[in-house]
């Protein structure tokens, strides 16, 4: 099909299979080879571009999903005031060595400065954790971004963040409908696979996207919204982790979800990946799912046949398996608002703790989400929910652990015992990343680590 793109302010129309990656379109069809291939799975960040205002891994974006989008690549940085500062400081501060990762870093940094013109070192690290560099050791990259931020003070830092890529697309193997009904009708025909943020299917079907028919849900504005009423926060299935992190309603009523969203991948993946994707992929290690468990969230599944609600704790039946029917779309996640005991003497405590092989851009070896209310005066926890990730075929709601903790008071002995119980409540396996025995120890350790500040104080 004819894919229309605006790249660095210039419109382009290319004849492309919409299932090709955006990276391929940029490099091979438009000849813009500043954007690099490094891994093909969104791990290294060498292919980072800004798509409708947000940095994404272009190796995971199907071209059809970028149809109508506004894209900023490294080739456009010299015409962009902030971009030019970044180019200057990367060179001046010695942040370029082999340079292959540099365009990706420049773009990620450009995305950061658009959102946050005065980032701290920590914020620079968070924003660039999705970009690997093998030469510099990162120190000079952090310095270069900091220096560019200083120079850019007063410049126009915003990027045109037109939400969208709003053009509908339709070809034999790729459809990007503009309404949910249209999407459900297509899905009812059978033969379509769903692509949302692309962060999972792009990896799973690397080089083979062309063998499948794809129904792209990213054009459905109604799935991208977060709204609230008196009793619930309703998160659309297409909401990204970045949307979750930025949402005031999520911050207030679903803090463990915001905490988990920050622990997902790194910036590019947070910008692309969707909450529905995290749920329906049903990876035992999915970061958002334990948090949804402790929030007692309910998933809304829609099909042309109608709508049904399934508690998140009943959605997954095994690794990669859910109760979702082939014609259903997970359209919403409903999170009830819980207000503790209402006495005003207690305060909500939440955490999402995770250990992976490294500190960022990492898949959990084990994770623990917790939400409850602490009456600090008596050291008692109430309304407590604890969920364990990556330690069983599906997320474990650790009921006995929660019960023990609520039996309190919250002392070192109590949390250590609770840790032992949690270790018994999970059913981990040995795999490439860790042994079952270590996973049990981790569950204990993460629970203790998360609760320790409340004991220690």
């Amino acid at each position, binding site marked *: 099909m004819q894919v229309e793109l605006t790249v660095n302010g210039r419109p382009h129309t290319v004849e492309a299979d919409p299932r090709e990656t955006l990276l391929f379109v940029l490099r091979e069809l438009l000849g813009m*080879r500043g954007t690099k291939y490094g891994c093909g799975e969104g791990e290294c960040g060498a292919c980072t571009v800004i798509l409708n205002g947000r940095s994404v891994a272009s190796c995971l974006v199907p071209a059809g999903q970028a149809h109508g989008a506004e894209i900023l690549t490294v080739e456009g940085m010299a015409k962009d005031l902030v971009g030019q500062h970044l180019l200057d400081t990367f060179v001046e501060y010695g942040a370029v060595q*082999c*340079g292959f990762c540099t365009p990706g870093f420049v773009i990620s940094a450009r995305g950061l400065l658009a959102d946050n013109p005065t980032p701290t070192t920590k914020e620079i690290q968070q924003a660039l954790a999705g970009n690997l*560099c093998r*030469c510099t050791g990162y120190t000079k990259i952090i310095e270069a971004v900091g220096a560019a931020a200083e120079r850019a003070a007063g410049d126009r830092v915003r990027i045109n963040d037109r939400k969208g890529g709003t053009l509908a697309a339709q070809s034999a193997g790729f459809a990007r409908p503009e309404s949910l009904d249209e999407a459900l009708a297509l899905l009812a025909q059978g033969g379509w696979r769903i692509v949302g943020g692309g962060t999972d299917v792009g990896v799973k079907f690397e080089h083979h996207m062309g063998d499948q028919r794809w129904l792209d849900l990213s054009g459905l504005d109604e799935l991208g919204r977060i709204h609230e009423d008196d009793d619930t926060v309703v998160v659309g299935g297409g909401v990204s982790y970045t949307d979750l992190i930025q949402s005031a309603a999520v911050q207030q009523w679903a803090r463990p979800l915001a905490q988990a969203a920050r622990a997902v991948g790194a910036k590019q993946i947070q910008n692309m990946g969707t909450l529905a994707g995290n749920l329906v992929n049903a990876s035992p290690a999915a970061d958002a799912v334990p948090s949804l468990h402790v929030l007692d969230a309910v998933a809304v599944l829609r099909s042309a046949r109608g709508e049904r609600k399934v508690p998140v704790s009943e959605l997954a039946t095994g690794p990669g398996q859910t109760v979702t029917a082939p014609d259903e779309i997970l359209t919403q996640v409903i999170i009830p608002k819980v207000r503790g005991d209402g006495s005003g003497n207690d305060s909500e405590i939440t955490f999402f703790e995770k250990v992976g*092989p490294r500190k960022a851009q990492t898949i959990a070896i084990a994770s623990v989400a917790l939400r409850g209310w602490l009456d600090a005066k008596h050291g008692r926890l109430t309304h407590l929910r604890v969920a364990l990730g990556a330690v069983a075929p599906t997320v474990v709601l650790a009921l006995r652990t929660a019960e023990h903790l609520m039996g309190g008071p919250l002392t070192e002995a109590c949390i250590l015992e609770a840790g032992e119980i949690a270790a018994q409540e999970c059913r981990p396996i040995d795999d490439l990343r860790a042994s079952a025995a270590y996973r049990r120890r981790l569950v204990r350790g*993460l629970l203790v680590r998360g609760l320790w500040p409340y004991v220690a104080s």
Partner: protein
Amino acid sequence: MTSMVTPGIGDSAPRIDGVAKASGAHVYPSDFAMEGMLWLRVLRAGRPHARILSIDTRAAEQVPGVVRVFTAKDVPGTNRVGILFQDMPVLCKEQVRYEGDAVAVVAAESDEATYRARDLIKVEYEALPVVSDPRAAMRPDSPRVHENGNLVDELHFGRGDLATAFESADLIFENEYHTGRQAHAFLETEAGAAFYDDGGRLTVRVGGQYPQRDQTQIARAFGLSNEDVRVIMPMPGGAFGGKDEITVQCYLALVTLLTKRPCRIMLDRDESFLAGIKRHPFQMRYKTACTTEGKLVAAEVELIADTGAYASLGPAVLAFGTEHCLGPYYFPNLKIDSYCVYTNNSFSGAFRGFGAVETAVGIEQQMDMMARAVGMDSIRFRRLNGLQLGQPAALGNVLDTESTLNQVLAAAERGSIYSQREELVQLPPTQGRWRKRGVGMAAAWQGFGLGAGVPDYAIVQVALDESGRYHLRTGSVDIGQGNVTAFMQMAAHELGCHVDDIELVMGDTFLGPDSGSTNASRTVFVVGSAATRAARDLRKKILDAAAKKLQSESDRLTLTGNAVTVKANGRSLPLAELGPLLGQGNAHMPETEEVSPGIPHKVFGYGAQVALVEVDLLTGEVEVLKLHSVIDAGKAINRQGVEAQSEGGIVQGLGYTLLEDTMVENGVMVNPRLSTYILPTISDVPTDIETTILEYPEPEGPHGAKGIAEIVMTPTAAAILNALYAATGERFTRIPLTPERVLTALSDAG
């Protein structure tokens, strides 16, 4: 950015390639495209050891867009490559020896077609027994990876009376160490293109480290003469030793040779992991002894390096590791037995550090143990035992230049971590309940250059053209470290011009001279010397020519910017009226008497590192909070460049210590992705890395410079491991040290 002031030697000049790379304009090996190029894809064995019974490419060749599928029977010439000896087929004919062995190459009009066709090639195999453990591979009844057996090389050295020394020693420590099969994981995988150039030469434009050697390897594999083959090496997206050997060169050359069409290839990331070269895993047994006064008495070392299915530079790595395995210290009695062994694992070759990084894990932890046992500060213990002028090193070679170990140690001692180590490890009690901190240090030495008996030379040309522009021509490739910027600074210094006044011709066998390989921390030293001499030679020719034209004498003239001026009267002659002129410089690495090919070295760099680490006792996670590195650079030609090498080397060392290993189970790699092979991200590294650059000039180096690209990484692992011991009381002898290994050790220790 162009600075108004001419950058001098020692300044932090911005690198010449910085702007092009940052802005996306630099054409990397994977970026080069021509009209009508074929796309290539390689079929790998996908099994560690098997006999090939048949290969059927018919179905693959029917795929629309496929031009041809090539197998071993299509290869003219020896079909063999290998730097030291040619044990590796370009395409396997009868046998595959590791998963990544190449069996066929698909050439097609589109990338998509190459994938489809590759899936349709039918190869019948008969499985052969697999040997994956190098110690097992040394046994006589082991399956043979190559006909002549699995022992690629062995080295044995000794002196003194070991038995008596150990008997009478006060303290003896014996440990076995295991290091990981680190992947280079350069951000740009192995990539390139091939085509016929205007002169009809088969041209391979590829990411590599030594154009002239690749030219020879390609020509030999296909029965061509070197003149028939041109190799161009643009600056690649990283190499670190992993592109020193042939990677994709021969697939490209084969297809263009046989189809007469241009072609291109870039390995997918998983293929790069599967097929690419790695660091040798080392199994090391160390037994060392000292007196209660802290004097080293004896050492017995066994090193086994797993080179996988092919030798590549394995014997050289083994030799280098053997030379360095006892550190820059004096042991009166010693015995070293080293082995380089074939297995059916992914093959290993050059990787930054080259045997010294690996053995430092052993010797520097032994030193830490002995220092603690005698109750002596680690730095004092090392100082007490450092090799003195005239003392024999491990191989019996006597150092004839003074070691700067003591100066390096003194700077480490004064540094911000070591001097405050007592305070830095303190944590407030609430945090300290589940966290422990420790400070550890390690020192190292690193010979630079290719070592005794291996020709190590460089030729560089600096020319002045008719228009008055300078051109520096070198075969030496800048693989990211900034060596070429340093050459340009040195040439500009001689010519009195700005770096921007010199054009660079780099890494082209047709246009530039042979400057040797970009490896062994050698290029700033030896190629830099050649560049300096070439520029001096040109300068002399320019002044002589100008003297004639100006009817003056050359010593009355000055050369600055773009003109020659008579000092006395200011009369000047633009350079455009003096060209063309050619300056040439040759340089050789200083050599010493050969003990075995490539060892020992004559010149060494010294370094020390101090790490502050924090361990999470609940999860086993380790965080390196601060790292101080001291290196003796001789003379930093580009200060920022040296710092950048230091920071990058430390982070590569940190990954080696805590994260990185290509895990191979019975010859099958289980983590060939960037999601499973774990590299450090920006959040995994200390933001507080401090580099202290000492400058004790090496008389034979340009401006006194020493090679530093490897010594920056060599002590990192041991410094972190020693810090972990200080934090936990546990000794970790196997890397990478995952949180699981840490937590298991801590739990087992109760």
